[in-house]
């Protein structure tokens, strides 16, 4: 198994003819992801790379190809609309890579997606990869290795660093999920922890959080109550000043809340092994496996 995506994932790429969309669609095809359709309004009827049919709408793509997962690479100004469209077309898993969606738009998008029973990952995220099975998003496939560690992270390149540490020490991954750096996101740590806990092919979980908000603290509570598998955690932003957005829209210490120290303390109280630096991930995991 794995979580959220596997060999049965049938992917439609929204924005497949754009600069980012076409680049990453090729990467996903090369990785072996079943990219069954692309969508770009006005380019319906074309073929992408001579293999993937392009449609004008997601609904047409779903009717023709039974796509069950969508990945979104469209510009921020139309990304909320792309999520609405995917949810309306009956897509079960919507992964939004796009950065820069206004947070007030997201307050309207999320109830809509949930009412239709869909899951949104992101926005402003690198997507997911279940090594050897499927890759949806932009995580480089070559740094991953199939295995039994689940990773969930708010970051992009920091996740690659953690994956790199694991792979070079022979610890493969079941699924890596980048949940995104925005203040309002569709899938949070708890959703991923619950899925990894239920996944027979995941033995341990790595959680990579950062400053801002209370998601990590809530997740720590959930670990205490519901997670029996070993969990190792990291928080980025121990040296971040309060009141400044550290690149990610969600990475901000407001007043005295959302600090790295507060989150690390919550992890420790929940029995989560806390990394002081990314290189600690392998020794901490090996001690607990």
């Amino acid at each position, binding site marked *: 198994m794995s979580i959220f995506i596997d060999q049965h994932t049938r992917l439609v790429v929204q924005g497949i003819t754009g600069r*980012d969309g076409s680049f990453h669609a090729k990467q996903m095809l090369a990785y072996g992801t079943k990219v069954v359709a692309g969508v770009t309004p006005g380019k319906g009827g074309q073929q992408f790379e001579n293999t993937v049919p392009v449609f004008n709408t997601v609904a047409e793509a779903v009717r023709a190809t039974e796509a069950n997962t969508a990945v979104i690479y469209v510009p921020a100004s139309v990304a909320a609309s792309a999520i609405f469209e995917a949810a309306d077309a009956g897509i079960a898993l919507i992964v939004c890579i796009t950065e820069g969606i206004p947070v007030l738009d997201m307050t309207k998008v999320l109830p809509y997606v949930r009412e239709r029973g869909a899951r949104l990952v992101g926005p402003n995220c690198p997507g997911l990869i279940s090594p050897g099975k499927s890759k949806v998003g*932009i995580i480089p496939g070559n*740094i991953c290795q199939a295995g039994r560690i689940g990773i969930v992270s708010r970051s*992009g*390149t*920091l996740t690659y*660093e953690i994956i790199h540490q694991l792979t070079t020490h022979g610890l493969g991954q079941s699924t890596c999920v980048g949940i995104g750096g925005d203040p309002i996101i569709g899938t949070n740590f708890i959703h991923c922890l619950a899925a990894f806990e239920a996944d027979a092919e995941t033995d341990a979980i790595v959680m990579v959080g950062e400053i801002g908000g209370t998601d990590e603290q809530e997740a720590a509570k959930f670990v205490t109550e519901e997670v029996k598998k070993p969990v190792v955690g990291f928080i980025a932003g121990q040296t971040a000043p309060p009141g400044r957005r*550290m690149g990610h*829209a969600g990475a901000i210490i407001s007043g005295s809340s959302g600090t790295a120290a507060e989150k690390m303390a919550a992890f420790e109280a929940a029995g989560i092994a806390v990394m002081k630096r990314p290189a600690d991930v392998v020794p901490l995991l090996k001690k607990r496996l």
Partner: protein
Amino acid sequence: MNLHEYQARDILRRHGIPVPPGDVASTPAEARALAERFGGKVVVKAQVHAGGRGKAGGVKLAKTAAEAEAHAKAIIGMKIKGLTVQKVLIAPTAEIASESYVGIIVDRASQRPVLMVSPAGGIDIEEVAAQTPEKIQRLPVDPRYGLLPHQAMSLGFFLYKDVKQARAAADIMQKLYATMYDVGASLVEINPLVTTPDGTVQALDAKLSVDDNELERRADIAALRDLSAEAPEEVAAREAGLTFIKLDGFVGCCVNGAGLAMATMDLVKYYGGEPANFLDIGGSSNPQKVVAALRIITGDPHVKSILFNIFGGITRGDDVANGIVQATREFPLKVPIVIRLTGTNEREGIDILKKAGFSALSDMDDAVKQAVAAAKGTAA
């Protein structure tokens, strides 16, 4: 993006919220003219993006127009938390019967706009929340229906017993909620919301932060940005498509990705250094961005070494290497540079660096250790 108080007051007024008179002045003479128009008895308030303006001497009461002019002369040009005051707000002093608080934030936990009201106004709402939490009511609003009249009314009664005042407050709350979506705010705050001795309810001071992601589609709001209120290197970084935040340390950091950039700063500290900055060159980096990043980092005289930490995904190692080489042709680096380069096009990047006489490391910890040692070496 934060707006100045005078800008926030204008926006609230345009959305039908009662705001007492007041106007902005850039010179002492303008301040005097405004004070004369308001009858002499005015408050002179520094317009600057920093809390604690009063304590810093940036808020003064004047009894005459001449006094207002003198205060404006003292306040304009004054530095508050490192920011130079360019403008002052001149407003007639008001008689106040009571002070309350009304604010709306986008709440991350409930993923909704949340209205917060408190009869304990005029002070920092975080302080109220910490000391007298029973004096705050919070209402998560369903964004599909907006703030419903009965919800606003019940919050109005939490503030005022008098039905007229409760109704006035409810009306202000609904207008404030509309303002939030209309301007794309992540926070709107009226603090204090006052009642005057004759019973009217007014927004005396306003704070408004706009979600940066809204600015592309709201040119009118984007035009309110006050570049003089920001650190010049941060403005230069934004124009180059970089995210840069200046810190107090001595190891200049240049990283791709926000999470990795924070983790790199933390690791600098872990190995005994202090980061001079947060800098994310972003995903699809081109050499020009790297040149701009180096120009900004080397402009800080406190930087004693420069650390690159690049984990190529979308970012390509050869692009970063070309940027570093190009930058050294355009201006001298003056301090040692330590480069960690791995991921996409790593080999091509390392080749480019070697030809130009640089070396690159593949491990993040090794690179950080070297950068900290190099910084301390040059400092000694």
